[in-house]
Every structure is written in C-alpha cells, then in structure tokens.
C-alpha cells in the first residue's frame, strides 16, 4: 500500500478546522481601509461616532479624520433647552437634529 504523509503548517491546519474566528475574519471590518470605516462613522450622529471609540484604537482614531461632523444639538443641550428658549423670549422652533457643520 502507498503510505502518504501530509505535513501542514499549523496556521494552515488551523484554517482547515471550521473555526468561527477564521470564518469571521474573512468578512471583518479589519480588512476595510480607513476611508470606508470613515464613510460608516460619518453616517452616525457625532454622539454615536464618538461612542465607537471604545471599540478599539483604530475606531477611536477615526472621528479625527471625518471631513464633516454631524452635530445633534440635543446632545449638548439636554434638559435646559426649553428654558433656554423661554429665557431668550424667542419663538424659534427647536433646531432640527443632525444638522451638519464643517469640521
């Protein structure tokens, strides 16, 4: 009979095993370039975008590269906003959320 011995490097062997981590690695955000991740972050509110900083170092550095930021004024003027407008004696409506400003 013909004996056959197959030698595989450990990392290849590891890939042959159906390994969740490897399967995920195929479609991870890891291989996406920064400009793609920025395009994702850009579509979040500023608050959500900043929150993503806890994910990893890479995600934390992304908001620095945003070409524009989405400010939701309600993030900054939580409870006092109605009083603020009363004090000003203004008829103005609350500003619309997610308006954009140049970074």
């Amino acid at each position, binding site marked *: 009979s013909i004996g056959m011995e197959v030698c595989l490097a450990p990392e290849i062997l590891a890939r042959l095993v159906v390994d969740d981590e490897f399967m995920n690695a195929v479609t*991870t*955000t*890891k291989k*996406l370039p920064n400009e793609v991740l920025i395009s994702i972050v850009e579509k*979040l509110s500023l608050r*959500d975008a900043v929150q993503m900083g806890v994910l990893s*170092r890479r995600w934390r550095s992304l908001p620095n590269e945003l070409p*524009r930021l989405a400010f939701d004024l309600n993030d900054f003027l939580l409870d006092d906003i109605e009083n603020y407008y009363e004090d000003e004696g203004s008829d103005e409506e609350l500003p619309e959320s997610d308006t*954009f400003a140049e970074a």
Partner: protein
Amino acid sequence: MEVDKGKGEAEETRKVAEADRDTVTLKSSDGKLFEVSKEAAARLSTVLAGMIAGGSIDDNGTDLKQIGSEALENVVDYCNKHANSIPSAALISSSISFNTAPFKEPEEWERKFVDRLSHDALFDLVEAANFLGMERLLDVTCHKISEMMKGKSPDQIREVFNIKNDYTKEELEEIRQELAWAFYDD
C-alpha cells in the same frame, strides 16, 4: 446577467463593434462574465469610467481580480437598477440647512437592495464599491452598516463586526470616563 460566450462569437463581437458597444463585460476573480451598460458603469464608477476612457476595457471580459462573482453580480445589478430609477425630487431637495456635502438618504429601492444582502455579501459589496470608486454604492452600503451598529453595545458591535478590543482594562476605563458624555446610560 451572466454571459457565456464562445471564443469565436466573442472574437466576432470584437471585430464588428469594438468602439460602438454600449455595454462592457466584466470578469470576476472566479472567471464569471457580467455585462453592464457602458453609460451606467462610467457614471457610477470612477474606476470603470477611467478604464473606458483609457481604452483598457477588454471585450472578452475586463479582469476584476479583486472582486468575486457574487459581489460583481451585485455591482452590476445595482448599476442596472440605478439606470432604471428616476431620481426622486425628495432625494434632491433633502439637504438640511448648513449641509455642505450632504449624504442623501438611500432611496426605497436602494434600501431594499442592501437589506436583502447577507452580512458577508454586504461587506464584499462595500469592498467592491470602494475598489471600483462607486461613491453612491459605497455610501448606501456604509449607511446600512452604520444602521446595523446603532443601538448595539460595544461588545455586540465587536462581535458582529469582528473587531478586536486592543485596549487594556485600564485604558478602556479611562476612555469610558473621557467619553462619558456620549453614553446615555453609564
């Protein structure tokens, strides 16, 4: 949309109408051929526009070695659907005040188009759109991903998008404090 051409027939096509063809044939990494309108390809992809203008389109199938057949099929499908859709007035006038470089919300058909994709297919399409310089498709797919991130805890997001937490415990605590204003609950 898959095109299966015999060699002779492809040769014939080449002779007859090299410059006049109104479609381009794209070849995926796994060798499948897809045909797409030249006009739509040039309008939606800066890379394909450059290749068409530069004459580097191969009528037997322009090799796109970085893009698998499933992603390329979605790219071509998107181009065709886009060519058929009439831009809605709402889409054009949706920009809010101060909005200098507006991202226009996906139209209904674009939403449906990305919603039916599996997680893997969505990420492959993001990559393909980025590679081909398809700004709108990249925006629409990234918008979908951003929606998938909303309302999830950091741990859930790390799991879904396979992001490795590379902070130490101490660093993470520091960052959480620093970013406390951005968190609703903690």
